[in-house]
């Protein structure tokens, strides 16, 4: 290999509408951070550094959803600058909690919150990045699992597919030997339809999964909703259960709309 091909891969982090939590995951990888920083050139990561180097970048990590005209244009430029574009977290992959506006009159929202509504420029919908540009990999979760992020960066650098399973939270519960809280205690739990990645956290802490990793690869949300109904949940409760941090993912969206209009 020539010395030119050995240059460190350039990584950039971009933020759209979000809470900053997913990019913080990188700084929360305390044991790996200095190693990662040694293997990469962190070219653009405003949360962590003043140095902001111009593109192009080898890997772009995009956090947040698109909610303004300006951001809808900005993501096009970001895509052009990045060889590999990865979205990190529920906002970037599914529109995030702010996608709850998508079922409301956003102008009314603005009037509720702001004294001077005419100053606010926003789109009617909060949408995931993949609705705007092609995305090479989507990392799920609200927030993402930091070990997935490290795996994803390593895999991208090695040119292999990341080893990040897309089965359901139930598989993680089984692996932890958790007793099923739905079967044993009748707790409503979205685990069967939710993408793995958290390590079955909520069931391990005696509460039902609330779906923060979004839909698994082939979720039967209709059957899930029926199960919630059997457990005594009202149509309004079922609607809210699917209308959380991944509400705009089409599978959760369809079920919440079915129950909202029942």
């Amino acid at each position: 290999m020539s010395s030119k091909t050995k240059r460190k891969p350039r990584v950039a982090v971009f933020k759209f509408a979000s809470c900053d939590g997913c990019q913080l995951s990188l700084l929360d990888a305390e044991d790996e951070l200095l190693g990662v920083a040694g293997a990469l050139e962190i070219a653009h990561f405003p949360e962590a550094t003043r140095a902001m180097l111009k593109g192009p970048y080898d890997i772009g990590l995009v956090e947040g959803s698109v909610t303004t005209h300006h951001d809808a244009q900005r993501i096009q430029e970001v895509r052009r600058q990045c060889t590999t574009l990865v979205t990190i977290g529920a906002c970037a992959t599914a529109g995030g909690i702010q996608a709850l506006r998508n079922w409301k009159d956003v102008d009314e929202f603005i009037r509720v919150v702001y004294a001077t509504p005419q100053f606010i420029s926003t789109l009617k919908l909060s949408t995931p990045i993949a609705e705007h540009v092609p995305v090479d990999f989507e990392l799920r979760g609200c927030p993402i699992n930091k070990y997935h992020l490290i795996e994803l960066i390593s895999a991208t650098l090695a040119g292999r597919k990341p080893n990040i399973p897309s089965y359901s939270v139930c598989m993680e519960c089984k692996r932890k030997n958790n007793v099923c809280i739905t079967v044993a205690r009748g707790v409503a739990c979205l685990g069967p339809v939710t993408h793995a990645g958290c390590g079955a956290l909520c069931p391990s802490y005696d509460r039902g999964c609330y779906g923060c990793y979004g839909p698994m690869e082939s979720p039967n949300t209709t059957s899930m909703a029926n199960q919630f109904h059997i457990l005594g949940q009202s149509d309004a409760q079922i609607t809210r259960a699917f209308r959380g941090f991944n509400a705009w993912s089409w599978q959760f969206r369809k079920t919440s709309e079915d129950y909202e209009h029942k």
Partner: protein
Amino acid sequence: MTGHTRTIRVETLARVEGEGALYIKLAGERVTDVKLKIYEPPRFFEAFLRGRHFSEAPDITARICGICPIAYQMSAIHAIERALGIRVDPAVRLLRRLFYCGEWIESHTLHIYMLHAPDFLGYQDAIAMAADHRPAVERALRLKKIGNRIVTLLGGREIHPIAAAVGGFYKVPTKQQLHELVEDLKWALDASLETTRWTASLEFPDFEQDYEFVALRHPDEYPFNEGRLVSNRGLDIDAAEYEDHFVEVHVKHSNALHSVVRGRGSYLVGPLARFNLNFNKLPQAAQQVAREVNLSVPVKNPFRSIMVRSVETVFACAEALRIISEYEPPSTPRVEVPNQAGVGQAITEAPRGILYHRYAMDDKGLIIAAKIIPPTSQNQKRIEDDLRDYATRLVAWPLEEATWKCEQAIRNYDPCISCATHSLRLTLERADAGDV
């Protein structure tokens, strides 16, 4: 020099949470305009909380901020419990304090070493700083990790933890699990003392302001979740009276809506305010190290907030050890909370300062109104006031250095712009929108 106009402009503020920009205009030796601008898009939390059940509020509001989700969970839970007249087990109360200790340790350490110290030492970031200050950065990472370990044990994960609930916790740790933290925390206590001495060795600009400091005050404790809201200018109120005393005003020089104390003006929330108003509630170890490094009340130099954060980290480590030594698990992790109508307010101390929540619920337990005022919204006017004075001292400096110093002055407040835009209090004005 008079009449010579210069502009300090930072289009993307770095090492802050969220997206902001800075614009300062100098005419000769006068500062004619200061704008801390926020162009991060609004997210409308107060609007979409309406119609949700109160039990969902801690999980939803946590998503306002990935840096201080526990603060949002604590303010939401306490406000709702007040609305519904819920009393929790004393052990639950202690666990909530311990939970906050974890967040303060990780958030303060992140800010001290990774966001703020590079300014003092002239590095773009902590990674570059690590090349020359490796032991300090390694200490930071280990200390931060211990804070996160507390949060992860009590809450399941560092960011958007899942175990805190209205009425208590979904699950509480065993005594054994907490005792497993002790060795780490003893190291952390020493490391935070070391951090305090390390920050004391930094160089501080000679800059003091006459602040109104606003923080919680509790009769027996350094404040987290409870206490009256007090200031050094006579404020002494319950959380329920907050909206009578603080208002948002439109200021002339920008289109910003700023939070002010009614009839007085800007105020400061956060470590400096807490320290100055509650010094005698700090544990001995924290008081002693503060004296050792000549940090005495009232601290009026905002650049010294990095030292105060270090002292508060000493407190958080000592407090965590105290709580663990006293802990007996509660009889039940959480009490039943029936659906009923009510209105409740709470203020808790986020790492960056007071976080106010108000909720009104109907008889089905559904939220009919919510109001959230994060610390950065409250400090915004104060940051601009600091800059208006500070920038006049930088007129003779080369523009690039003056710009960096102004950025540092903003970072004194550890601003969280993601919080401030949960429902934006500024107009959406882009720094790159031409002549602004």
